[in-house]
């Protein structure tokens, strides 16, 4: 599941990069930083990433997740920090839905 | 000034500000009831009311005005001889 999710995130990065100059493109790597000043994503870029990846997760896994629910801001670790941490966070959200009986499709 | 007179004068001010000659005031009338009554038009409304009645409201008076009825009461108080 995590590999599929990383691929969805990379798909968004492709879209993002298509509108950027060479020096401003984000690397498609699990270590790529997505959050904060060190990231190449601004407010619009990060919001778009979250919206589009949530949409892609729904299309792929038939599960509606809410990455920016209020609970995420109480976490000690920031799940938005890198591609890897975001993918792991999304896996946890999908599994949570699965445990609550809201998962209706195989991956 | 009698209440009737105040209402008449106030109606004239409201009709000019909101460009509506059919506007009828009631004690319960608030911003939600009148088209184009936003913070800018309210700001202008208060200026025109002060001019029309030759009075000056204090901020604490203004913030007691929940509706036109309260507005009329406060104007009456302001017009009472000291």
């Amino acid at each position: 599941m995590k590999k599929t999710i990383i691929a969805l995130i990379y798909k968004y990065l492709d879209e993002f990069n298509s509108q950027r100059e060479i020096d401003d493109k984000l690397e498609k790597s699990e270590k790529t930083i997505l959050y904060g000043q060190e990231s190449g994503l601004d407010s619009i870029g990060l919001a778009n990433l979250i919206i589009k990846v949530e949409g892609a997760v729904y299309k792929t896994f038939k599960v509606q997740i809410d990455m920016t629910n209020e609970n995420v801001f109480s976490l000690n670790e920031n799940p938005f920090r890198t591609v890897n941490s975001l993918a792991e966070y999304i896996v946890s959200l999908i599994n949570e839905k699965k445990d609550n009986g809201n998962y209706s499709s195989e991956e | 000034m009698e209440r009737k007179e105040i209402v008449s004068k106030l109606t004239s001010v409201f009709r000019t500000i909101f460009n509506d000659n059919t506007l009828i005031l009631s004690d319960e009338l608030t911003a939600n009831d009148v088209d184009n009554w936003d913070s800018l038009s309210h700001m202008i409304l208060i200026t025109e009311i002060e001019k029309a009645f030759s009075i000056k409201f204090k901020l604490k008076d203004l913030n007691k005005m929940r509706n036109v009825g309260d507005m009329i009461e406060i104007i009456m108080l302001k017009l009472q001889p000291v």
Partner: protein
Amino acid sequence: MENYIIRSATLNDVDFLVETIIEAEKGGSDILTYTTLFGLSEADAKIYIAKMLEEEVDGCDLSLSGFLIAERNREPAGALSGWIEGQEGVSSVMIKGNLLNYCLPKESILQASRLSKVFSELSNVNFIPGSLWLGPVYVTPKHRGSLVLAMLCHQHIKNAKNIYPEVKEVFCAIFSNNMASILNYKMLKFEVLKEYVATSPEVNKLLPSNKKVIMHKTI
């Protein structure tokens, strides 16, 4: 998360709140309505906005008490205004209009009076009593891309529900050129409820955009 704390604004924050209101008014453009409508320089506008905040009136988007501030390492990162419509028994439109009337110079009021007819189509926002409204928002450039607006929004909703458990809806009104705010609210599951459009070509000299969207979410 990431050591951001969210707290209520105090009188010590007036300077940052003035910056918030000015930048929120511009909404990413160069147009400041305190200048275009009221004829004030930006420097003078700051003085008058501070004066309005310092009146400490509750219940509108110029209420100091309504602002939450996001802070990191004791440095302000962003601020967002919020209020429960009609909480004081008076509509926010009237409270804000009272503040503008009381604090701004008369010549500014007269100028705005002449010019405001140009965008009357944007004036019919229906502020539903008992609902939470989010107002001016600003995140400093250094902290953009850090979900600061999301943290502030969540805290406003939490606070509102603590004090008024019957609050069911949250709204915001945003000029349509302000893509950062619109996208961030969309990310937070707000939907566009209504769009207001001013048709006069003069509007674009006075306001950041001729379109305003109302966004909404059930809470």
